[in-house]
């Protein structure tokens, strides 16, 4: 695992970044180091105040959807009261996006901050069960680290709700909220069709709060330092900081904590930029350099902050070939439950592979455009929508390259794969469990 971490501050702004990751950088933080840096765990003894603080802070989910955290907390609390049934709180560290490494890095370096957030969230919504869900295949060392951290907490009596560790199968959709609940309930990690919302009826029918691990770490600091402190960085509409996974020419992930609203330019290399990962958006280099890291700005390029993935494609690679390779992976990672996704994604992948080669047939591009429209909004989850967005942005950003391929040329001088794609797709039902 790569442990390169740093805090980059907004120009001209006094900041205290990094907030989440230990300032020393690479040394995993044990209970004593954590307590010395962050102070004691501030239980509130009543649910309401923390939700108010989270509301005032303006914290949004850092797993990708940027949903206001206080609304989820309030919905789960209301469901526990209405149904007189304790809630379940799940810290989602599945990080199934192959290009992302920020959640694994956070869990490795500052597990206690995440576990504090899990306890405080459990208290806030009235939960009697807490689960930390992490990705199985790449990060076995994280699982061991978390067991150590939980043992340290037991020794000092930090936790009021026992925390159970659970591992997700190595599938792209494992971290999707309903897939996660399906898997924790003993089924495969494949999405289900909502309603009901999991905040109402999730794991075992209990009101369920699912929050990304980074979100919980922010929550643990808001509980200690308050909403005004949280808003000292970031923009008015999108306050706070976030962890980003940045990949440039060497392809290695660098985990950086930055304020929302930071100009993207200094984070990028020379080349087209993939913002938000494999459900994200390709943006041409010149356009990306004018954007800032917040949804208001990124929206102008049809991009979103997502889980903070920023990848610059080296100029010696072909963006079409890279996109085609990733889309073949995404097609294989479809749970295969919904007709449009099951039928559309493999066809899109095949047509993109043709476009990535020399002299594609004329209809290949029209087919991709039609199929991306056809699959959007028609799945139980957003896998087809996210894949279609990624593909459409490639057709726009690499339009000149498409023309070159039609003439039998390609500007790339290296065919080596750049974007990370896990090997081994699901073949049997067991690969989803």
């Amino acid at each position: 695992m790569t442990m390169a971490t740093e805090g980059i501050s907004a120009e001209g702004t006094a900041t205290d970044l990094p907030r989440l990751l230990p300032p020393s950088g690479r040394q995993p933080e044990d209970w004593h180091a954590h307590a010395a840096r962050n102070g004691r765990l501030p239980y509130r003894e009543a649910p309401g105040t923390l939700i108010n603080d989270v509301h005032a802070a303006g914290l949004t989910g850092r797993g990708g959807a940027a949903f206001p955290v206080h609304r989820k907390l309030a919905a789960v609390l209301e469901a526990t009261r209405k149904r007189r049934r304790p809630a379940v709180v799940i810290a989602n560290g599945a990080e199934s996006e192959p290009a992302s490494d920020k959640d694994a890095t956070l869990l490795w370096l500052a597990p206690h901050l995440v576990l504090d957030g899990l306890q405080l969230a459990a208290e806030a919504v009235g939960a009697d069960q807490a689960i930390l869900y992490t990705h199985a295949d790449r990060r076995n060392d994280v699982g061991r680290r978390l067991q150590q951290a939980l043992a340290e907490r037991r020794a000092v009596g930090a936790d009021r709700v026992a925390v159970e560790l659970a591992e997700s199968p190595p599938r792209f959709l494992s971290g999707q909220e309903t897939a996660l609940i399906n898997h924790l309930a003993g089924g495969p990690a494949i999405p289900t069709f909502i309603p009901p919302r999991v905040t109402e009826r999730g794991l075992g029918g209990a009101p369920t709060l699912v929050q990304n691990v980074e979100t919980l770490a922010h929550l643990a600091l808001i509980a200690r330092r308050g909403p005004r402190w949280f808003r000292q960085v970031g923009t008015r509409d999108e306050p706070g900081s976030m962890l980003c996974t940045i990949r440039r020419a060497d392809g290695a992930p660098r985990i950086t904590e930055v304020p929302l609203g930071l100009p993207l330019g200094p984070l990028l290399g020379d080349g087209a930029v993939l913002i938000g990962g494999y459900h994200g958006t390709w943006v041409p280099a010149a356009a990306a350099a004018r954007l800032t890291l917040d949804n208001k700005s990124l929206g102008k390029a049809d991009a979103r902050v997502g889980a903070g993935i920023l990848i610059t494609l080296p100029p010696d690679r072909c963006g079409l070939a890279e996109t085609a390779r990733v889309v073949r992976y995404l097609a294989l990672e479809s749970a295969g439950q919904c007709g449009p996704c099951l039928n559309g994604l493999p066809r899109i992948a095949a047509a993109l592979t043709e476009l990535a080669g020399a002299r594609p047939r004329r209809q290949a591009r029209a087919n991709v455009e039609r199929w991306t429209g056809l699959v959007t909004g028609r799945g139980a989850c957003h896998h087809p929508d996210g894949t279609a967005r990624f593909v459409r942005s490639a057709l726009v950003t690499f339009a000149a390259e498409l023309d070159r391929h039609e003439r039998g040329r390609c500007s790339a001088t290296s065919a080596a794969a750049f974007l990370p794609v896990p090997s081994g797709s699901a073949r049997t039902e067991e690969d989803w469990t």
Partner: protein
Amino acid sequence: MSERLLVNPIECEGHGACAELLPEMITLDEWGYPIIDGRPLPPGLERDARAAVSACPTLALRLMRS
């Protein structure tokens, strides 16, 4: 109170009965799966919509009050 059509895409197997019974609101894509007009059901189509819902062999099609 208006109603909308909703398909559960996991249950749907693309039999296509709905599109035959309610072509005003449902067409089929090139793989035989329904493309649903999700706007409120216009007056006069309630009866056909209910027929389409009952005809679905996998019970994937629903009418939702909105």
